């Protein structure tokens, strides 16, 4: 930094930091545009579907790091989402009660309340990442169906544990009087009926800001040494370790990263209007939705999984009349996919790899 030596790749560090942040910044700008134009164009109902699709994209893309890139089979992803949702919800709910004496929305677009949301979602992600570490450890010894059972069990255990939590504290006096143990052991998050009262901050901007964060991160991981190591674990563990890949580290890292992003998505979900986050979301039905998205999208294909997330979120909404047949549609879709395209929509490829230019030249990560 002191002597910026001439370098073919870059000049000085502010520009390299900017260079590294560019895609994130571009995504933020798109999110702002989406936030201010979309509701006016399509109305609140379709905007809501776009929000749901965004949250599903975060979950599917993050699950794809474990199931697609690293080749481990996790069906507990909704568990991580729910952990993140509850943690983030607690922070904003009790944070608002503490700071502003009411768990209502505070401040406008990019106001203090929304920053509280962003911070809570990141914190929820960290809590979920901690869970991801714990759930990732068995993946060192188990594989395939056995690992799937462990992750399935994680979601179910979480669901039951959340049902045993305490009542939500509803007024600021009670909160000020309460000790940490009143708040945390057991957590005062509403038990089986769910955690109601969380301020509903989630909007198009924040959802797509986090979508950007997740997708750019996933993309950069995939086309890096870390991602290559993960794919090597998927392809052949014995060969991977013989080539110097620390397979234990790669697997746990995949779980931790996937859980982190799932946690942030859970935070956004908990703050979405019309949603009361409750223990049932940790169960395996919801985890299956995300597994279906990754299978439908193609293992390891970020763009494929995003497309699948959008399709599977919007399809049941667009076929509102057939809503109770949603699961039948899913099943038929999956069986059809298995027969016609067992590798998923895009297989292991990204959408742009179907254009001949990229087939001919060695794949080169864009700067």
């Amino acid at each position, binding site marked *: 930094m002191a002597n910026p030596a001439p*370098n073919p*790749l*870059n000049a000085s*560090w502010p520009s*390299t*930091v900017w*260079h*590294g*942040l560019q895609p994130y910044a571009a995504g933020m700008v798109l999110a702002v545009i989406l936030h201010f134009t979309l509701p006016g164009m399509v109305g609140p109902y379709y905007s809501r579907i776009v929000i749901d699709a965004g949250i599903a994209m975060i979950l599917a893309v993050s699950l794809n790091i474990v199931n697609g890139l690293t080749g481990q089979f996790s069906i507990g992803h909704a568990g991580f989402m729910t952990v993140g949702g509850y943690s983030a919800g607690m922070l904003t709910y009790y944070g608002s009660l503490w700071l502003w004496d009411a768990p209502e929305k505070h401040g406008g677009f990019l106001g203090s309340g929304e920053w509280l949301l962003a911070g809570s979602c990141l914190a929820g992600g960290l809590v979920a990442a901690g869970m991801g570490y714990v759930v990732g450890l068995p993946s060192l010894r188990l594989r395939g169906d056995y690992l799937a059972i462990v992750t399935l069990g994680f979601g179910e255990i979480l669901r039951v544990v959340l049902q045993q939590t305490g009542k939500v504290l509803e007024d600021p006096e009670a909160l000020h009087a309460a000790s940490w143990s009143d708040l945390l052991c057991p957590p005062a998050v509403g038990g089986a009926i769910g955690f109601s009262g969380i301020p509903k901050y989630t909007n198009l901007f924040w959802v797509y800001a986090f979508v950007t964060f997740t997708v750019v*991160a996933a993309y*950069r*991981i995939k086309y*890096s*040494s*870390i991602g*290559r*190591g993960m*794919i*090597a674990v998927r*392809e*052949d563990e*014995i*060969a*991977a*370790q*013989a*080539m*110097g*890949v*620390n*397979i234990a580290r790669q697997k746990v*890292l995949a779980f931790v*990263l996937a859980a982190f992003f799932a946690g942030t998505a859970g935070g956004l979900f908990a703050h979405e209007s019309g949603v009361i986050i409750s223990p049932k979301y940790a169960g395996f039905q919801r985890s299956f939705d995300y597994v279906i998205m990754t299978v439908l999208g193609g293992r390891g294909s970020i763009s494929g999984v995003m497309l699948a997330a959008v399709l599977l979120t919007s399809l049941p909404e667009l076929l509102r009349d057939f809503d109770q047949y949603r699961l039948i549609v899913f099943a038929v879709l999956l069986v059809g996919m298995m027969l016609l395209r067992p590798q998923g929509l895009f297989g*292991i490829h990204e959408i742009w790899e179907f254009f001949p230019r990229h*087939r*001919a*030249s*060695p*794949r*080169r*990560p864009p*700067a």
Partner: protein
Amino acid sequence: MMDSAASATPLLQVEEIGISFGGLKAVQQFSLRLPKAGLFGLIGPNGAGKTTVFNLLTGVYRPDAGRMHIEQLNLVGRRPHEIVAAGIARTFQNIRLFPNLSVLDNVRLAGQLRNSHGLAATLLRTRRSREQEETLRHQALELLAIFDLQDRAAELAHGLSYGHQRRLEIVRALATHPQVLLLDEPAAGLNPQEKRALATCIREIRDRFQLSILLIEHDMGLVMDICERIVVLDHGVTICEGTPEQVQNDPSVIAAYLGCVTG
């Protein structure tokens, strides 16, 4: 010449390692002194324990007994990826490429163990991470060019011909910058012409990269042609060690291969 090679300070020193699986003593008291830039062969009938020796050396199995060192560094109890970092790379008897990775990525993956950038640098794509990835790419392409595979860099590994896959496995092992290269039956399935090319290639690798090679091979012509010394295993026990001439004339080796007792 042969004696000087054996008596020089060995790069890889293996002393009396052994492993049993239940009651089966797969390898017993295996010793090896592999000098720098030495080219040794490991032969023996099927099931003699040759690949088990490789698995012991690379940390897939942990020896029950004995010591292994590479340049004073203890290898017993280290995990496979640590042993690769210490400088021992291998190929596999049944080709184990990453089938759905490109040829380039197969090689890059092997080179990346010396990267020093972590997750944060990857997510921010910092200058250092980009420089390291770019260096990795260049080195991989250079290595592929040496072995005449650069035109295939973008193809998926499973699309290569069998001979090319065998060659790519060697390239991939070399990309880890090893000091010792373990080749497990590199000539299996190759035609005579390809075998001759392989023999030249193995010698060139040794000379060019100045590394030590231990070769498992069933093709006696190839082994006798290129190896300086040969170790013969039978039922997990070393029955003979010496120059190709010594081994060829050793009665216990002939007995192990032909199943009759002579002398």
